[in-house]
């Protein structure tokens, strides 16, 4: 059979039920194979939309997403999703077309060095040089993408090789001698960690996206509840522990709660699980958690002691390690009363510094109120996909995520334009769930074309634009740190989002009144098909509290 037909067999063998892509010259053979392969293909309007959709699908379902593009511009349009997937450890296989082998290196039409361009931003990549390699490479790509610390894998297939006639035999095993991720976790280290937890008087459990990726949310909860451990999550880890809860401190980091950041600051022991001490968490590194010892559990050994030296490193999968850590801890039966003093301190912070904002006195919708209204309208049970900016931080702060894979955003790369297509992918992966996208008027315009994809395929996402007419986060920084010299952040009121929605065949709505907002949102969510809502909010509102860049938790403002 043709190599591309073998490719279809491989995708089926990997359990792929949907792919996102856009055809072009170099992947014409692949698209010919799709014609009767029986794999659902969503035709996107821009490859970046397809790449983010595959990410959204992967984040919502935990399965490997698949995204396709042609050579040259098709592949370069995928660069942003590839990098985004790398930063947030999202398992996606990107399959790109490449010019015929005889044209390689000649600057042929639509030729780009896809492998070279993407090399720094992939977990791994494969350039097919012989058609017989193709089936094995596809399976190896899925294996690498999904195991260990998940990530993006690129497979680049020259057009002529994809047309080659090859004998196809199903591949049943992968052979990657240089790729053996450690998942077990050393028992001695786990015991040591349990002892450290038992001896600590001011512990904090700090969990990140690794907990979600490992499917270990229940195990994390079990550990936290095995004693009165205070717990906080990164922006990637939200939903890893069911909020709200008495032991939940809220998110930590630059726009985290004061309670969470102060607790980190005063902790004597921090147990990091699937989190990587990003600069948005630590602030000024030299003043980060100065009194603490660190337990660091991560499947990627390179994350351990990268930014903060770990006293008890444990390399492995959280799903595997956490139940053992909980068991070891319980066996020690430490006295919960030792945490009394710590809790009275934490409670005092919580009472003194709740998340607050000044409510409007008229019909004006405050952005924070918009998120609270959305929480109410969805019963706190939607899959919420956000874009990047102020709205993302407000959603992370004010929408309490009680389950994993209900909060999907671009954390590491901070990709504006991620939200709408990722919501599309999430909805395809979880058709039974309500999928809402919270975006900004800046972000949504970066991949708005995918509304057409949603309309054509009946993908019923509900997009709520937090519209303040600004690139709000940049405006906030210019206000606070650059003497309010607003340089190129005013976007005005273009376009008319209601008309845009209608032109794309979606329902367009505009909300401007706080008093009816919850009811209006309920109605928007109940409306069939894709809905785009222009929610007009306060123009100049700042996201608080905040650790200014390069400062420590103690220096929080707002």
């Amino acid at each position, binding site marked *: 059979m043709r190599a591309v037909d073998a490719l279809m067999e491989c995708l089926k063998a990997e359990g792929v039920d949907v792919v996102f892509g856009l055809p072009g010259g170099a992947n014409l053979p692949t698209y010919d194979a799709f014609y009767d392969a029986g794999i659902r293909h969503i035709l996107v309007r821009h490859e970046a939309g397809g790449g983010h959709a595959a990410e959204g699908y992967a984040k919502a379902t935990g399965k490997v997403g698949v995204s396709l593009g042609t050579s040259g511009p098709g592949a370069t349009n995928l660069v942003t999703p590839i990098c985004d997937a790398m930063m947030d450890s999202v398992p996606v296989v990107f399959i790109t077309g490449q010019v015929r082998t005889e044209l390689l290196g000649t600057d042929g039409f639509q030729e780009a060095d896809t*492998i*070279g361009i993407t*090399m*720094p931003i992939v*977990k*791994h990549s494969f*350039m097919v*040089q012989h058609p017989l390699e193709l089936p094995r490479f596809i399976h190896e790509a899925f294996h*690498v993408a999904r195991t260990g610390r998940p990530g993006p894998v690129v497979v680049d297939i020259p057009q002529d090789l994809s047309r080659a006639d090859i004998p196809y035999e199903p591949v049943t095993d992968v052979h*990657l*001698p*240089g*790729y053996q991720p450690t998942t077990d976790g050393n028992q001695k280290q786990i015991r040591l960690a349990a002892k450290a937890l038992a001896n600590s008087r001011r512990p904090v459990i700090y969990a990140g996206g690794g907990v979600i990726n490992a499917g270990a949310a229940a195990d994390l909860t079990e550990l936290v509840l095995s004693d009165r451990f205070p717990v906080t999550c990164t922006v990637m880890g939200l939903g890893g522990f069911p909020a709200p809860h008495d032991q939940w401190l809220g998110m930590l980091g630059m726009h985290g709660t004061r309670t969470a950041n102060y607790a980190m600051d005063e902790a004597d022991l921090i147990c990091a699980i699937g989190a990587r001490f990003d600069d948005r968490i630590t602030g000024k590194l030299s003043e980060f958690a100065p009194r603490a010892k660190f337990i660091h559990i991560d499947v*990627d*050994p*390179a994350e351990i*002691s*990268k930014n903060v030296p770990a006293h008890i490193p444990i390399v492995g999968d959280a799903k595997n390690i956490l139940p053992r850590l909980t068991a070891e801890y319980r066996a020690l039966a430490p006295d919960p009363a030792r945490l009394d003093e710590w809790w009275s301190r934490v409670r005092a912070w919580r009472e003194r510094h709740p998340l607050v904002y000044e409510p409007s006195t008229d019909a004006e919708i405050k952005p924070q109120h918009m998120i609270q209204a959305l929480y109410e309208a969805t019963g706190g049970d939607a899959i919420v996909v956000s874009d990047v900016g102020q709205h993302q931080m407000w959603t992370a702060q004010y929408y309490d995520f009680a389950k994993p894979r209900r909060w999907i955003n671009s954390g590491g790369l901070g990709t504006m334009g991620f939200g709408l297509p990722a919501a599309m992918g999430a909805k395809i992966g979880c058709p039974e769930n309500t999928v809402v996208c919270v975006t900004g008027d800046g972000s949504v315009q970066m991949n708005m074309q995918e509304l057409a994809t949603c309309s054509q395929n009946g993908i019923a996402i509900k997009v709520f634009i937090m519209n303040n007419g600004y690139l709000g986060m940049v405006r906030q*920084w210019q206000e606070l*740190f*650059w*003497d309010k010299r607003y340089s190129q952040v005013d976007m005005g009121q273009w376009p008319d989002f209601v008309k845009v929605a209608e032109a794309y065949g979606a329902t367009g709505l505009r909300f401007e009144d706080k008093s009816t907002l919850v009811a209006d949102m309920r109605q928007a969510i109940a409306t069939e098909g894709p809905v785009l809502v222009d929610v007009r909010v306060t123009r100049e509102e700042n996201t608080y509290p905040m650790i*200014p*860049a*390069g*400062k420590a938790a103690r220096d929080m403002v707002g």
Partner: protein
Amino acid sequence: MGEPGTKEILSLDELEATAGLRTGRKHILSILVENRPGVLTRIAGLFARRGFNISTLAVGPTDDPSVSRVTLTLDGAKHPIDQVTKQLHKLVNVLKIRDLEPNETLARELALFKVNADGAVRAEVMQICEIFRAKIVDVTKRSVVVEVTGTYEKVEAFERLVRPFGLIEMARTGEIAISRGRSET
């Protein structure tokens, strides 16, 4: 250092001060990799984007045709060697990494020196070659080409000694290394 993300102006001196810290012990990494296209690019690219500096790099076949050996030397102070090896391990085509212990390692490089050897100084140059057990592999009326093998330090010492005579040009391979004793590197 100015606060990141703020309007505080950074002086060039401040930037340079953070860039110039390097006085660690030299590390020799012996890396076995799958002999596939692009593997060296992946290693070099990793070093470039993580800000690790390669001092020398040598690549060649091993006893197994499917495996190549990359020998890399770098300054261990500037970047924790631990982070370098962990990042290298994440490359799927990298099979094995050894951070070689200097005392238990034989490291050699080959260098070619083209040195001015006009009548008067020729004898002296030849004498230095003899001391270093270097070979003269090409000779003209006014110059010699000398082949030197040895450790990085030995080659450095040779260079220091012949430079005053007029060093026309020089080429060095970078060190390759193997562990002492019976066990594999």
